[in-house]
């Protein structure tokens, strides 16, 4: 029961979703959109479970006296946003949106911009001409880097064209092979899941 019921449900959900792909029939489409809705609803509940587990583990750490200020800040943040939403709604000029625009968004954008630094440090140590493969990696990167800024046009009109050619032919062909491989790997994995051969998610007793 503990094993078989989930396997049966997994098979049914998988088989229905597989078959509906091939059908434009209104019944097939409404089944599809119902399953999508169910999926989103279950996800939202799971989010509640995940957040509850996160809060619980933080409270545990606090009671042990570990990292109290940091964990309090995190919990305060989790509680603050729903309170603001209840008080002022989530539309324009609400406190909820103000916090999003002035606190969350700048922090997210700044974490994103850390990438510029990591791109620089990775370039410094990652592009070394150790062997032929690494030299090809290095050479291609240098050509494309130059080809992407205004000075490329000043050097030669062929520079941007060469960049474009590399991107569209040799580089694209390798990308396609990677995509084909991933497609096949995903397909066989999904197939094993539906048939109940792959039961990683059922582990643990």
């Amino acid at each position, binding site marked *: 029961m503990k094993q078989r019921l*989930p396997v049966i449900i*997994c098979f049914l*959900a998988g088989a229905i*979703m*597989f*078959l509906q*792909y091939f059908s434009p029939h209104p019944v097939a489409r409404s089944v599809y959109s119902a399953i999508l809705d*169910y999926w*989103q*609803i*279950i996800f*939202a*509940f*799971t989010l509640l*479970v995940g*957040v509850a587990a996160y809060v619980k583990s933080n409270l545990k750490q606090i009671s042990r006296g570990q990292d109290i*200020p*940091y964990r309090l800040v*995190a919990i305060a*943040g*989790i509680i603050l*946003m729903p309170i603001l939403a209840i008080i002022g709604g*989530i539309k324009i000029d609400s406190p909820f949106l103000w916090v*999003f*625009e002035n*606190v969350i968004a700048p*922090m*997210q*954008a*700044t974490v*994103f*911009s*850390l*990438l510029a*630094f990591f*791109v620089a440090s990775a370039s410094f140590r990652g592009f070394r001409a150790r062997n032929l*493969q690494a030299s090809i*990696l290095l050479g*291609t*990167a*240098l*050509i*494309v*880097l130059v080809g*992407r800024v205004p000075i490329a046009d000043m050097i030669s009109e062929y520079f941007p064209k060469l960049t474009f050619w590399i991107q*569209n*032919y*040799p*580089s694209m*062909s390798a990308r396609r092979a*990677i*995509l*084909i491989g991933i*497609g*096949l790997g*995903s*397909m066989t994995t*999904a197939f094993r899941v*539906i048939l109940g051969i792959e039961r990683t*998610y059922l582990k643990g007793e």
Partner: protein
Amino acid sequence: MDIGIIIAGILTLAIFTFLYRDNPIYRLVEHLLIGLSIGYALVIYWQTTLVDILFRPLFTGGKPVLLIPLVLGLLMFSRFNSRLSWLSRIPIAFMIGAGAGVAIPAMLYARTLKQVSASVMPLIDDGGFHIEALVVALGLLSTLAYFYFSREHEGLMGKAARLGTYFLMVFFGATFAYTVMSRMSTFIGRIDFLLTDFLRLIG
């Protein structure tokens, strides 16, 4: 000056301190970001999912069939009880199964059929010999040889797979460089905010 800009500016600088090393200031804003973004997600999912597609249609729209996802969703809470926790496998099995069912045809169409057929081009036509067609075919076939697992890469197969790695390196080099531009733009944008809005050095 706008209090929002001051706060945003201070937080921006606080995150940049991580570049020096991990420190209490970064740690504090990191936890602030985690907490607030979890809180934000809770509100958004509550409103756009639970209220809009579950509670409202269920209780005021007369759609009792939505009791199914409601029960499936509630089963996830069984995880907090070790004797009942196996029940949470039912909604998980539903999600994994549905995802796998979509994945088979979608992956085969977008990632296999489309990619294979886009790679087929005539080598010679009215326009003469197409070196591009040859390059694409060589690149595709040799990279596929690299991804051939059930044989060691020796002999002809080894040579083809080796050629495949060269194509892979061209792809990785080009992709890396292409993305540099975007990453730098984001940082330039933050500097713009700091210099123009926060410090007001630029009018």
